[in-house]
Each structure stands twice: as C-alpha cells, then as structure tokens.
C-alpha cells in the first residue's frame, strides 16, 4: 500500500463528496449551444488554441502557393497582384493571427493550472478578447477570397500603401488588425494580474514557475510594444481616409515615421513571439532531465534583459534608409548585445540537459530540434546585425532564411513540443509517440530543405517579395529545392493533424502526470474535472510534485485552501505580488453572452469604418459601448452578501477589495500604461517631424496658441481633483457632496474637451494642408476622446451610487475611475505643453 495515504473516515468522505458536488455546480459547463457562453480559462484557452492553429494552417497553405509560384523562373501560377496579396497575408496571419494568439492561448489555458488558481482574474475579458480575435481574423483572412486582401507586405510601408494602393486592402489590414491588437493588450492585462496576484499561498516570487516569469515579461512587453503600432495605424488610416499628410513628403510628412513606429513594435514583437516558446523549453527540459532548471536566476535575468534590450533594436530593420552612421552603430551594437542574454538561457538549458538524466520523448525531440534551428537563425541574425553585411543582405532571401530559422526554431518547434507535452492535460489523452517522431523528423528535414537554400539564393541576389525571377539569375534550382522542401514540411504537419484527431478519438485516457513532472499543473486530474485544482495548495518549492511530500494527495483531499464552493460561486485566491500572502477571495463571473455582443459590435465599428460606412460604424460603436457598460454593471464589483469568508486552513479573507490591492485597480493601471504609451508614440511623431523637417518649425506659429491648450489642461486637472475628492467624500458616506462634486467634475471634463478643440478651430488649422496641423489635430483628438471616455466613467459612478451598487465601503468603481483621471490629466498636460509650448516657448 502506498505510504502515507491517510484512510479517511466516512464522515470526511461524505464532506469531501459534498464539496465536490458544490464545486461542480459552480463550475458547471453550460450545455448545448449555451456551451459557447462559457468564460472559464479551460474552454476559452482551448478555443483560442484551435483557432490559432487553424489560422496557422491557412497561412501555411498560402506559403505553399507562394512556393509553387517560385518553383520555376518566370512562372505564371499566380499573377503579381495575387502573389502580393498572398505573401502579405502569409506574414500578417502568421505574425498576428497565429504567433501572438497561440502564446496567449497556451497561457490562458495553462497558467492558472501552473499557479494553482481556479481561473484567471478576468474571465470575461479573455472571452471578449477571443471573440474579437475570431471576428477580426475571419474578416482579414476573408478579404483574400474577394481579391481585396492587403498587398503591401506585412509591414505596409507608405507611400506604397498611401499613394499607390487605393483599394480597401490596406484599410482591412489597419482596422482589422487594430482590434486584434486591442485583444492582445487585454490578454496582457489578464496575464500580468494573474501572475502577480493569483498565485497559491507560499509561492513567493523566487518560486514561481519559470514559464510564469517569461509570460510576465512578455505581457509587460506587449504593453509597450503594441501601442506604437496602434498609434501608427491611427496615423496611416487618417492619411488614407481623410488625407492627413503624415507620410506625404510634399506636405511636411515623412514615410520614415511609419517605419520607426512599426519597427518599435515589430522588433519586440518577435521577442514577444520567441520568449513564451523559450518558456515552454524551460518547462519541458527540466521534466525530461529529471532535474530542476539549472540557473533559474540567470534565466530570469536573461529574460528580463532580452525584454528590455529588444526595445533598442528596431532600427536594424532600417539600416538602408540613409540614417547617419552613429545611429546605425548604436542599433547594430544593441542587436549584437541581445545575443548575450539569449545565449545565457540556452546555456542554462544545455547545462540542465547535461547534468540530468536524458529521457527520450517526443517533446524533447522537438525541444532539441528547436534549439538547434534557433541557434542557426541566431547566428545569421548576428551576421545581419553587422551593418555592412546588412547593406548586402537586406530585402534579399537571406533575411527570409534567417527569420524562418529563428521563428520556426525558436517559436514553432517549442510550440509543437508544448502540444505533445500538454496534450494529456488539454485533451486528456497522450499523443502517439510513433506518429510524433515521424512528425518531428519530417518537419525538421523538410524545414531545412526549404529554408537553408534561401540563404544562398539571397546572397546570389534574389530579392524578397518578388513574384518571379529571371532564369539568368541562377537561383532556379535553389528555389525548386525550397519548394520540394516546403511540401515535405507540409506533410509533416498532416501527420500532426492525423495524430491530434486520432488521439482525440481514442478511448483510453492518459494516466495522471504521465511525464512525472514536478510542476503544479500536473496535479490536474485526467480527465479534467471542471473546477481545475481541487484545492489551492500551499507551496514550498519550485517543483512541489517532486519536493513536497503527499502533495497531490493533500490537494485531492481538499486539505488546502478553497476546497469548497459553499455559496456555489466561482472563486479563486488573490495573493500579494512578492510573497503570495493571501489577500482576498475573488469571485469571478461565469458564462455569459454579453462578451459576444460586445465583440460583435466592436468588430462592427472597425469593419464598417473600413468601408467608410460612417453611420453604421458609429451606431455599432455606440452599441459596443452599451454592451460594455451593461457587462460592467452586471458582472463587476459585486457587493457580496458577507464581508469575509473562511477559505480554509483557518484563514478568513475579504471578498471585496478596492484600491491598489484590488485586481480591478491593477487592470486599470496596466491598461492605462499601454494607452499612455500609444499617446507618447504620437508625441514622438510630433518631435520626429520637428527634428527631421525644416518646414515643421516654420508652421508652428500658425496655431493653436497658448490660451486654449493651457486652459484645457487646467480644466482636466480640476476634473481629476474633483473626481478624487468625490471618491473621498463617498468613502466618508457624504452622499449629497459626492453627487455634487462628481457632477461638477463632469462639467470640468466637458469644458476641458471643448477648450482643447478650441485652439485648432479658432486658428483654422486644416489638417489636410500640412503635417503640423494634422499632428496637432491628432493630439487634440486623442485628448478629447479620452476626456469623453472619462465623462462616461463619471456618469457610470453616479449611476452606480444611485442604484446602490456602490457604497462608502464598496467603492471600486470610483477608485478605478480616479486612477483613470490621473492618466487623463497627465495626457492633457503633455498635449498642452507640446502643442502650445514647443518649440515657441523654448
């Protein structure tokens, strides 16, 4: 008999069964078509994964079409126009609809398990993000079937996309992707709060799974990388739709600004794609080495280092644009420096492999294949970081070879390893070892046959993004080899699909923890019981299943926290960021269709705007706003029936928390950091034009003056102070003063918006004439729009108090809105200082 298993008496057994009954009721999956209203992380994560993989295969088929066209010189399988749409879509779909969403999918699916949590803190936000992703993805991909797909490359450079591509394709790219980017930021918020606030007690910061460290860093990177692209999208769309000349040199614009904004996003983006896959390697390798990861703190520092350094590399995509030597030098140096922390991580993995036992398995095969492939790509990366070499290799097929080695090696192989590794948890079944090995070797060999020759054809002079090439170039045989390799590669994926389907259909479930891993997600029962972890454990080690005695038994017997759902509600624990001290018992919402409506109307806003159907777009936007308000009203900041709850192990915790300890406050703070970054990107644009264009300074005397911008800033500061005062009055339960102060603050907001618009209006600033009035209008419009959102928030708080859904004690709404107004006041101060004060007052 296994040692140490206590035999429970029948009373304990009865209690345990009742607990499971209540947990099951709280976490019950809706049946029939209502299944799609579910919001818990297992379902949303699964849908996200499947959808991402579908987009992956779609983009893969596009790649095969490209390879057929390029197999022979002067081929006419695809016209130039079709080819341009296809390569643009291949890149766009792979980067935006597969690589980013798949990591979000894996994290949403697995992170709560790894952290012993029942769910992420904002399940409806994840669901909303997923439905936005699905709608946006179908919209963007669907354009291909109408011959209306974007065709300017995945990076859509103006002036090609402003002056030479008047069709709707570029707008589909800009608007279709913007709301996918918003979904990514939503996922980032969820993951940051989840990792820092939803850990099991005892899981101090030095004990968190290495995967969680990586995802934390990546989520923070998303906050600062995506907004510059959103800012750039706004500028590009304003130029295309309304003729505001941000990238038109004849009217003071500069196409290089797009390149800067795009690549400030684009380079961190590839690390956002790479790091979560490395996180999978860092999880899988210790399991199959039967050894804790060697160099945990080195790996953490390297991930933080890569996260930061990756923001300093972007100009290496622009080496050939005529920038001065000093600029090229510092970016070249940073691009090479990033290899240091990257290498440190790989050395730690190799050390773990060498020091431990080596257990052969399919996940390990894919992991090693990934490391080898990534290292080759990394070496060619250091080559292209060297400026003189870059001048030769830029925009040639050498780069295509490089990028596929790093992306497929560094990102895709680990994802495939992750699929094989986590299939028992996600599907309840192990995938086939034999099919897995065939799959790996065919993909590995096919991949190298496809992409290695590209380095050579590139150096022989074959440019990228060309639909054909002349026979005389001498690259015909290399291209044919690449095409054959591509089909071999594709057949490897067919084996994967076959394996996934046949394993799903087989009857026998996997044993629990089939890989004998040490981390928390493997406490999960197979097949899965809907509540996730049976009780939220107390952690004492990085590998609790290896180190803590009777750990799984104790979890199963409900001997830890929240073994029960006494009120039949969905609950998880909130803990402190560094030491994971329990702070709150958080109740999370359950199934709903409101997220679908909100995503549908948000999608409608962007999709109708693409076609310039403004009335429909605005109507859809208004409905989206109402959906979101309804969702907040019914699904957030619930006043509980009691103040505190016993969560087990003699611990009682509050159910409702507001202020800096609350997850909602964190979400507001993190979202506003991303929003503020987008704003700063627009400010960067203002200063960029001032630096590079002589005529910009000549125009700055033409408006908007000093009075109106300064007045606006003062009014917004007053609006913030008033909101803060009303929060304090609410806390002291001075109802009437609360109402009057908040109403006055709302008036300040309204006047602030009016004032900021008065400047450009009074000076008759026409944004179509020159980039100076255009950028002023954008900054003014941004501030005004945020002011408008602030007013809605203020009204919401008034209504919540009126309806009794917010009280002196339960005041999360006004607390979070006050935080919003901090950022709004800051935005208006910066806008006013820049448009009124620079450069005249210096």
């Amino acid at each position: 008999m296994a040692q140490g298993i206590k035999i429970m008496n029948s009373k304990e057994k009865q209690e345990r069964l009742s607990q499971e009954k209540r947990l099951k009721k709280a976490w019950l999956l809706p049946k029939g078509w209502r299944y799609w209203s579910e919001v818990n992380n297992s379902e949303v994560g699964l849908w996200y994964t499947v959808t991402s993989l579908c987009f992956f295969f779609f983009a893969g088929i596009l790649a095969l079409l490209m390879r057929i066209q390029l197999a022979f010189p002067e081929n006419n399988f695809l016209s130039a126009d079709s080819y341009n749409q296809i390569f643009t879509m291949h890149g766009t779909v792979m980067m935006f609809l597969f690589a980013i969403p798949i990591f979000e999918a894996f994290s949403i699916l697995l992170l709560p398990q790894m952290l012993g949590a029942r769910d992420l803190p904002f399940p409806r936000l994840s669901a909303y993000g997923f439905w936005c992703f699905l709608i946006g993805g179908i919209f963007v991909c669907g354009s291909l079937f109408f011959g209306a797909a974007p065709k300017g490359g995945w990076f859509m450079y103006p002036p090609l996309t402003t002056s030479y591509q008047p069709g709707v394709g570029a707008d589909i790219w800009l608007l279709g992707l913007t709301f996918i980017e918003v979904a990514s930021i939503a996922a980032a918020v969820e993951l940051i709060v989840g990792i820092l606030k939803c850990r099991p007690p005892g899981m101090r910061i030095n004990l968190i799974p290495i995967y969680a460290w990586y995802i934390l860093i990546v989520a923070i990177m998303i906050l600062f990388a995506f907004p510059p692209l959103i800012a750039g999208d706004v500028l590009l769309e304003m130029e295309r739709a309304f003729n505001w000349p941000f990238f038109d040199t004849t009217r003071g614009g500069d196409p290089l600004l797009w390149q800067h904004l795009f690549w400030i996003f684009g380079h961190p983006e590839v690390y956002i794609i790479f790091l979560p896959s490395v996180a999978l390697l860092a999880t899988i390798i210790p399991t199959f080495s039967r050894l804790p990861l060697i160099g945990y703190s080195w790996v953490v520092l390297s991930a933080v280092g890569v996260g930061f350094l990756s923001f300093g590399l972007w100009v290496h995509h622009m080496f050939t644009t005529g920038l001065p030597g000093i600029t090229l030098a510092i970016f070249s140096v940073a691009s090479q420096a990033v290899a240091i922390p990257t290498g440190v991580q790989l050395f730690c993995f190799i050390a773990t492999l060498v020091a431990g036992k080596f257990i052969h398995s399919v996940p390990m095969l894919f992991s090693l294949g990934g490391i080898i492939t990534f290292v080759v790509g990394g070496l060619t990366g250091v080559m292209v970081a060297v400026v003189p070499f870059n001048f030769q290799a830029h925009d040639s097929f050498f780069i295509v070879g490089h990028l596929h080695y790093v992306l497929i090696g560094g990102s895709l192989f680990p994802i495939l390893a992750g699929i094989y590794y986590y299939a028992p948890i996600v599907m309840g079944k192990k995938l086939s070892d034999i099919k897995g090995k065939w799959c790996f070797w065919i993909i590995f060999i096919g991949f190298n046959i496809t992409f290695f020759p590209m380095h050579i054809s590139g150096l022989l002079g074959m440019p990228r993004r060309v639909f054909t090439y002349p026979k005389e170039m001498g690259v015909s045989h290399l291209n044919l080899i690449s095409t054959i390799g591509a089909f071999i590669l594709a057949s490897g994926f067919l084996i994967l699909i076959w394996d996934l389907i046949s394993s799903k259909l087989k009857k026998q479930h996997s044993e629990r923890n089939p890989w004998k891993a040490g981390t928390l997600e493997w406490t999960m029962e197979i097949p899965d019981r809907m509540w996730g972890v049976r009780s939220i454990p107390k952690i004492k080690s990085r590998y609790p299943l290896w180190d803590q005695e009777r750990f799984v038994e104790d979890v199963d017997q409900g001997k830890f926290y929240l073994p029960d759902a006494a009120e039949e509600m969905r609950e998880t624990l909130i803990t402190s960021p560094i030491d994971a001290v329990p702070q709150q018992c958080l109740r999370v919402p359950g199934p709903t269709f409101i997220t679908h409506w909100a995503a549908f109307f948000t999608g409608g806003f962007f999709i109708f705007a693409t076609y310039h159907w403004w009335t429909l777009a605005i109507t859809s936007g208004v409905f989206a706003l109402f959906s979101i308000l309804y969702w907040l009203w019914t699904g957030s900041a619930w006043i509980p029936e009691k103040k505190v709850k016993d969560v087990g192990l003699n611990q009682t915790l509050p159910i409702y928390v507001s202020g800096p300890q609350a997850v909602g406050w964190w979400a507001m703070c993190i979202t506003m950091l991303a929003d503020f970054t987008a704003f700063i990107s627009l400010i960067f644009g203002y200063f960029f034009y001032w630096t590079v264009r002589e005529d910009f300074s000549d125009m700055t005397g033409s408006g908007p003056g000093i009075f109106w911008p300064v007045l606006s800033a003062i009014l917004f500061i007053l609006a913030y102070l008033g909101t803060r005062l009303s929060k304090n009055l609410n806390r002291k339960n001075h109802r009437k003063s609360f109402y009057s102060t908040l109403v006055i603050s709302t008036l300040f907001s309204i006047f602030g918006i009016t004032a900021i618009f008065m400047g450009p209006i009074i000076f008759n600033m026409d944004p179509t004439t020159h980039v100076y009035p255009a950028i002023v209008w954008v900054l003014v419009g941004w501030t005004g729009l945020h002011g408008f959102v602030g007013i809605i928030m203020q009204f919401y708080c008034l209504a919540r108090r009126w309806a009794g859904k917010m009280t002196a004690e339960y005041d999360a709404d006004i607390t979070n809105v006050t935080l919003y107004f901090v950022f709004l006041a800051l935005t208006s101060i910066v806008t006013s200082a820049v448009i009124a004060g620079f450069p005249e007052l210096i």
Partner: protein
Amino acid sequence: MVNNLPPFSLWHLIISPLAWALHFLGIYIFVAIYCAKFNKDNSPVPILIGMSLITLIALLIVIRECFAGYKRHQAGVSSHPFNLANPEDRNRFLGRARALISGLSAIAILYTAYAVFFIRSCQ
C-alpha cells in the same frame, strides 16, 4: 540580518535595465537633435561630452544597483539555488537577480557608448 534590509519591491529589478533604456534613448535623442539642429561645424566634441555625461550617470545608477543587489544577496545563510519558501531565500534570489541584471545592463551601456565614441560624427 535579513530584517535590516529595506523591503524589496519588484521595481528594484528593473532599475538597471531602465537605466540602460534611458541611456540608449538619451544618446539617440541627443545625437538626433544635435545633428539636425545644432551641428554647424561637424565637431565631435559636443557628441563626446554629451555621450560621456549620459553614460556616466547611467553607469553610476547601474553600479549602485549592482552593489545593492549584491548586499541583499549576501544577507543570510541560505544556499543556492534559493528555491525554498522563506524570506531569506527570496531575498537572496532577488538580490542576485538584481546584481546580475545590473551586470548585463552595464555591458549594454558600455557597448552603446563605445560605438558612439568611435563614430562621434553626424555623417
């Protein structure tokens, strides 16, 4: 000994890489604006002065962080790999990570300064 240390915040972990980022941005912006607006006689002196000043400030921050991290790492007797659930292990881990990231940031700062030192011209 552990209790005498100031409480740790996760923000401490990012001060050094932030110093690198501000150093990088500082040099980039300084060179961009100087070369576009103030470069009359193509003299390397202002670039060298600006670069040295910014680099010195950044390095001082990073060196301070490195020592602070090392000091925290030295406190206590818990041993590598600091994977136990007690404050001492957590402190030593965080101190170590802070010191190591400072080292990396210092290298990155010096790399950048080195490149500027060699080119020191607006062309």
